[in-house]
């Protein structure tokens, strides 16, 4: 298992409010960045992002806390005491994409205090869906396999569908086509990252 899907992740009311917040915040979405330095690299990632979740942040945090323990157990990833939660909204409009990457910084890029260890992405869009593409492509990323031979699966975004996976699972966002060019018709994503303190030991695993 390299990912788990959670339908009705936020629930219909919260999902609708968050989508409304996204659409109403069009003017304050800024260019998406990559890497620890927060660089804008349009050949790697094209989209717009927003950290401000307004008054919805608390309710979203509670939904993440509700689902995360189950996801960690299903995925068989190393679990740690959760010491923080990083959230952002991303709007994928016409032509948006994000090339293969992982969500965790390692080596010299590694942050001083905390590491991401679980990624949860929840999709939001108006009905009927007015964009095509934008699939989440997840790679197995086995070191024994050459990158070009790496197996992958594509997941089609669905409103209020969340996908959880290890933060260092290689993944990409396939190009989005949004013919109306309307911001409201974009593919929106709520990105959530569970954080652990850098020197925290793993929690004892439960045996399968």
């Amino acid at each position, binding site marked *: *298992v*390299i990912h788990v899907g959670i339908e009705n992740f936020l629930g219909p009311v919260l999902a609708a409010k968050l989508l409304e917040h996204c659409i109403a915040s069009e003017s304050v979405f800024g260019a998406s960045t990559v890497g620890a330095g927060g660089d804008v690299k349009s050949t790697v990632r094209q989209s717009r992002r927003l950290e401000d979740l307004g008054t919805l942040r608390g309710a979203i945090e509670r939904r993440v806390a509700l689902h995360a323990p189950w996801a960690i157990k299903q*995925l*068989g*990833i*190393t679990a740690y005491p959760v010491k923080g939660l990083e959230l952002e909204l991303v709007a994928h409009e016409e032509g948006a994409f994000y090339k293969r990457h992982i969500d*965790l910084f*390692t*080596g010299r*890029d*590694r942050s001083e205090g905390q*590491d991401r*260890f679980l990624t949860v992405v929840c999709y939001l869009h108006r009905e009927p869906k007015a964009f095509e593409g934008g699939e989440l492509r997840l790679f*197995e*990323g*086995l*070191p*024994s396999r050459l990158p070009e031979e790496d197996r992958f699966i594509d997941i089609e975004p669905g409103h209020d569908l969340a996908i959880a996976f*290890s933060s*260092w*699972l290689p993944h990409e966002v396939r190009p989005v086509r949004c013919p109306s060019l309307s911001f409201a018709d974009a593919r929106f994503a709520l990105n959530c990252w569970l954080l652990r303190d*850098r*020197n*925290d*030991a*793993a929690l*004892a*695993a*439960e*045996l*399968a």
Partner: protein
Amino acid sequence: MTDNGRPAMNLNRKIIISPQAMARTVGDEVVILDLDKGAYFGLNAVGARAWQLWAAQKTIAETVELIALEFEAPAETVTTDLLELVQDLKTANLVELSD
């Protein structure tokens, strides 16, 4: 001392996974990421099972017993292979041995 000249390892010790080692499962394999180096370390099915057992705080002796049973392999062979794996992971600073 063992036949290969290394000090004998106390099999009642547990394996402590380093905070810089993060693991995930792919099929019956386990991939370990060394966060400091950004390097990957792959474990086959037997190594993957050992990693899961160590993560569940089983001793080396308990790990040998369970793996010998599950993979229908002689305990002596499993012991040799696991001690070699422990040594490799220790050299890579991905695990330590408990006191």
